């Protein structure tokens, strides 16, 4: 008798929660789950007389072009390496800058800083490519004309020298993303109760010690979540960054081609929806495996920080 009563109470408590989840779940269903049947395009031969989803089943034929040439491995290498680079540098920078930002006491100053560093995030990548050109153009760019010439150095043809571009892309991606990525850490930092810091200060800890002992550990959940999600996106890239910024310059391909840009260029002349579908599927599968994998690992290390 008691057991039955207990069960009833439990569900009653949770029904409101399910109710609150309903709009989101409905949306997920319509927007994400229903269209999943479209994934099969990747495995079928495209034939409009049969209907786009009823073409002949061809297994992995549409995937072959992703591995066919040595270029295919270059693109995968680039995608993964850039993501790792951005992840490591980005995380260190975000945390460091978030902490430093928090040290600013002046309210007006901090508001100004925050607005300023967010501006790059708001500008669309197309406009950023114009700006990059304004700096990097061989003949009229600011760097060549305004800096190098002034110091008597020779101009560099930026758009044809591949070796500079990992740095250039790193700088641009961080410039653009920093303002936003610190927001998450900031939100976290600002919610840490100041009591902890006062207590530590009374104990005689220096600011650096305070940060190390209080702030950093508190950031762990956010850090873990963001890292796992970044890992899941390891095979994706920001198309605007890798395609528009280098202005589609041939000599840079070896360092600027990612999976997304490679697929775009290769298919620009062929227009095969099945192949593009296959590429997307490939990225999804790898990303999925990576997230599951990293989540499992985190689970072993500190269970409460795992995503599921």
């Amino acid at each position, binding site marked *: 008798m008691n057991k039955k009563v207990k069960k009833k109470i439990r569900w009653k408590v949770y029904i409101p929660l399910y109710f609150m989840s309903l709009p989101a779940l409905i949306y997920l269903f319509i927007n994400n789950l229903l269209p999943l049947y479209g994934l099969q395009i990747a495995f079928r031969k495209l034939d409009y007389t049969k209907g786009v989803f009823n073409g002949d089943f061809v297994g992995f034929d549409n995937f072959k072009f992703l591995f066919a040439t040595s270029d295919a491995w270059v693109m995968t290498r680039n995608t993964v390496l850039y993501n790792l680079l951005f992840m490591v540098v980005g995380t260190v920078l975000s945390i460091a800058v978030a902490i430093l930002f928090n040290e600013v006491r002046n309210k007006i100053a901090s508001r100004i800083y925050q607005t300023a560093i967010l501006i790059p995030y708001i500008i669309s990548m197309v406009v950023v490519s114009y700006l990059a050109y304004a700096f990097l153009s061989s003949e009229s760019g600011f760097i060549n004309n305004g800096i190098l010439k002034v110091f008597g150095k020779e101009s560099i043809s930026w758009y044809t020298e591949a070796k500079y571009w990992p740095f250039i892309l790193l700088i641009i991606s961080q410039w653009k993303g920093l303002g936003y990525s610190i927001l998450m850490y900031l939100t976290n930092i600002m919610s840490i109760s100041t009591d902890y810091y006062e207590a530590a200060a009374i104990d005689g800890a220096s600011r650096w010690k305070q940060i190390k002992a209080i702030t950093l550990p508190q950031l762990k*959940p956010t850090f873990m979540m963001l890292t796992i999600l970044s890992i899941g996106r390891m095979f994706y890239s920001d198309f605007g960054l890798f395609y528009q910024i280098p202005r589609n310059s041939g000599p840079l391909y070896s360092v600027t081609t990612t999976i997304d840009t490679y697929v775009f260029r290769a298919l620009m002349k062929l227009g095969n929806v099945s192949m593009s579908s296959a590429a997307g599927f490939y990225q999804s599968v790898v990303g*999925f495996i990576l997230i599951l994998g990293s989540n499992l690992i985190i689970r072993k290390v500190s269970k409460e920080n795992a995503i599921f």
Partner: protein
Amino acid sequence: MQKRRKISSNRRWEIGGNIVMSILAICAIVPFVLLTISSLTSESAILKNGYQFWPKEWSLDAYAYLLNHWKSIGNAYLISIIVTVTGTVLGIMIISTFAYALSRRKLPGRSILIFILIFTMLFRGGATATYIIYSQIFHIKDTIFALIIPGLLMNGFYVMMFRTFFENSVPGALMEAAHIDGASEFKLFTKIVVPLSLPMFATVGLTLGLSYWNDWTNSLYYISAKHTELLSIQAYLNKVNETIAFLANNDLGQPVPVESIPSMTVRMAIGVIGVLPIICAYPFFQKWFVRGITEGAIKE
């Protein structure tokens, strides 16, 4: 003795923080300044001398062009604003409520729901299938809903962000106390969790708003060529860029419609006005940020 050391250590960090932030702020703004100045430069000066911080020839031509087209641009602005505000408000409501439910660790089936969420974040059915569903089943093609609903309204990433915040930054003790007092989950959410999470709402609100503001793919798929009244600012700019690229790459042997190709300076100007509203709206978000923190501290 100890006090002095403590103060100077804090002070050093404060000064250091200010210096670093100033440098970063300047680096962040400089290109935007260049953008604005370029939009105020005359076209021929750009072609002859390239981009400069102090152009040889100033000109308001770009903005004059925009004014001439104020009808289409003003309309685009209106659409952008309506879509952004509606989408953001609706989106935040859906996202936060879901995230809250997921943050209650005892919820049966929680793991399954999270798994579904992550799965949908990674696996997409593809543009074609999505298009068929929205246009054939729900008939939202060429309506304003097509700019609000597909793809943007809820993003699993934001759900996860909220969830993490709810779990870790809202004190469990507070929740338990209210729970024992007989508060329902909904009351818990609205009366306690939301006020404490204002910084998060501000952050996600900003990001979500931005994704709506900058979106042009929904227009591309769902708005047909004759419904130019449903174009948002970014869709408009994107169309301009595409047309330019198209014309630059194809010689069509026909007279080119000059009015379809705004010059470089006009494109810069459009870039500027595309960014301004967000910059103006941002201080309001900041207020919530600060409010959220002070309130949280007091409650503590």
